[in-house]
């Protein structure tokens, strides 16, 4: 059991370090097992965005924390990938360039995972392959509006576009 945990930890750690650099466009991060029995020890996180000196995660900004957490959640996800993944507004704290790198990451993983991203962010919408609109009538019942195929797909197919 100990070996299995340490193997898992090693892989997740490697994923985390790689994903952190891709999402931050640089910098470095690491995980450490706290002191004591590896079968019980907690896991500490250290993260240093590009150009900065500090590695305590409490001093990171709201957006930097969100991006670090996304890197860790994806690292865990890759250990046991599911065929589809719903992301609910995880891009809310991110600025434009971080949203772009987040979208790059999703694109890289679409060969093995289908992503369904709930978002209010215009850039995330632009980078999606398709858009599903949901609306609510005055009387409190939800319905779907037409699915839009992303602009770049339409340039290829010259398909119909729904005006909104």
């Amino acid at each position, binding site marked *: 059991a100990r070996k299995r945990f340490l193997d*898992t930890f090693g892989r997740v750690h490697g994923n985390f370090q790689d994903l952190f650099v891709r999402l931050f466009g640089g910098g470095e991060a690491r995980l450490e097992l706290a002191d004591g029995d590896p079968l019980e020890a907690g896991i500490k996180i250290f993260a240093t965005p590009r150009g900065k000196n500090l590695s305590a995660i409490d001093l990171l900004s709201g957006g930097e924390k*969100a991006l*670090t957490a996304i890197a860790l959640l994806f690292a865990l996800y890759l250990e046991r990938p599911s065929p589809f993944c719903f992301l609910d507004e*995880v891009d809310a704290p991110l600025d434009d360039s971080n949203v772009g790198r987040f979208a790059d990451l999703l694109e890289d993983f679409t060969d093995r995972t289908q992503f*369904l991203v709930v978002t209010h962010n215009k850039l995330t919408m632009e980078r*999606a392959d398709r858009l599903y609109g949901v609306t609510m009538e005055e009387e409190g*019942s939800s319905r779907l509006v037409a699915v839009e195929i992303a602009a770049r797909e339409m340039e290829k197919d010259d398909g119909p576009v729904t005006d909104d």
Partner: protein
Amino acid sequence: MYLSGLELYGFKSFPTRTKLTFSPGVMAIVGPNGCGKTNIVDAVRWVLGEQRAGILRSDKMENVIFAGAGAKKPSKFAEVTLIVENTLGLLPTEYSEVAITRRLHRSGESEYMINRRTCRLRDIRTLFADTGLGPDSYSIIELAMVESILSGRPEERRRLFEEAA
């Protein structure tokens, strides 16, 4: 495998039969505050077997049934169907397309189906057990998880690793 469809009927803010069709790649789900986007995510959790009402933002499971709004009367039951393409044969079944259905009546009675044949909740959970889907997987990532994974204590974080192991 990929998710090809999701149908909601009487589930939360979807009183009428509503079908979403999905395709591989990245799909954005958009709309104003309160229009029903997270309710769609809740529907996926629920049909995959989520039993904790709190995860679905309520204290009682009965609250997932459409409660009525404006002129529309409350629904008698909530029903969600999830359809996956079993393209890689990941699911332990000979079908190339698998539809799972969960229904909850106001009486409290529940029904479960795989490809329209009645089964038990645990059959659904067994079906998806090794696919990385199911209540504790990372197939649903929401903003609150993003905040708590860093602010939680090192020991709690460890539990997440153990679940993935």
